[in-house]
């Protein structure tokens, strides 16, 4: 159970400082892509998503400008995609744990209050 402290993030700081370091975003993103690889038929390093992310980060690494807008845009996009992958995974895990059981069968429903369904040879009706 994670408590969110609003006071700590209450200050309206520099917008890009809230993103953290690009390396951390990249590492988190690659980790999420590893979890997101559905089938083990192909290693996650071969997936187009992995290659695209790595190539994009490499291409924007070297820049002659101090405040490169394209770099910041890429970092924001990467952070957004990381948030998407992470939230979908966490949401799926929560759904599976709390809401994934589906309906109870009639026998289970009867068993909740201690009843048993009558057994009729040949079924009802």
């Amino acid at each position, binding site marked *: 159970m994670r*408590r969110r402290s609003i006071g700590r993030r*209450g200050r309206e700081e520099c*917008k890009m400082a809230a993103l953290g370091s690009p390396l951390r975003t990249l590492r988190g993103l690659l980790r999420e892509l590893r979890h997101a690889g559905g089938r083990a038929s192909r290693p996650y390093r071969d997936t*187009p998503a992995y290659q695209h992310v790595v190539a994009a980060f490499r291409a924007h690494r070297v820049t002659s400008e101090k405040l490169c807008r394209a770099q910041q845009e890429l970092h924001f996009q990467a952070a957004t995609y990381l948030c998407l992958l992470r939230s*979908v995974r966490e*949401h*799926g895990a929560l759904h599976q744990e709390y*809401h994934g059981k589906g309906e109870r069968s009639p026998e289970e429903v009867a068993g909740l209050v201690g009843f048993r369904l009558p057994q009729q040879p040949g079924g009802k009706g």
Partner: protein
Amino acid sequence: MLSGCRRLLWGRFPTARFPRPPPAAAGSGPVGPGGGRAYAPPAERKRFYQNVSISQGEGGFEINLDHRKLKTPQGKLFTVPSEALAIAVATEWDSQKDTIKFYTMHLTTLCNTALDNPTQRNKMQLIRAAVKFLETDTVCYRVEEPAALAELQRNEWDPVVAWAEKRYNVAIGSSTSILGPNIPASTKETFVSHLASYNMWALQGIEYVITQLKSLILSMGLIDRHITVEKAVLLSRLEEEYQIQRWGSVEWAHDYDLCELRARTAAGTLFVHLCSESSTVKHKLLQD
């Protein structure tokens, strides 16, 4: 005997009884869920493909599930203008394990909406719907009590409103009355003309984000990369976070809603950025 015949009929023609799969379903592949139970929800579709890949067609990038091309719910070919977006959609399809969970595939849903336009709205109607949210914008609606919440709203929301006012050179303000803030017409016109500069796909995404966050100002903050997704979601749910801090968090409700809102908002924001960008990389020669 009669009910036995009925059961036989239901078992044989399930497609007649059950509605089609939810709108986010792909049209390709065999149609109709199986199963013969009367009141069960439509059976989930199993993952019927092994590989997901991307190819470039005439209209843009297409997704291939094995050898089949992905289609929208209305049967059109699924094409996206941006390669990065196509890769992200392919990753969504690839990350499905045994069953396909359409409710987790937010980018696919957004692309389907943009391609099909099921509500059949034109650009102006979308823009008007988006700007209409300003009249009931979350960050403009303040409470008077409890005092701690009122102060929290002032501390957290005032900077964002000030940023929007400065960035777009408009007057917004906030209000504690039940009627909400009084937004001048010039403000609305400014936002209308600003949103008109986005293309149709990006507008679908923007309207989606606004509907999720219940705030035009927070959505513009996201589009302009002023705040991150996590921060925007936090600001949108400020009162809930305040109550959670006070009374505790219920994981299966609070965290569940938080993750879902974050996922949808992140998907919408990414969609807008990928649909409205045109990036070029300038290679300069190293001079030493």
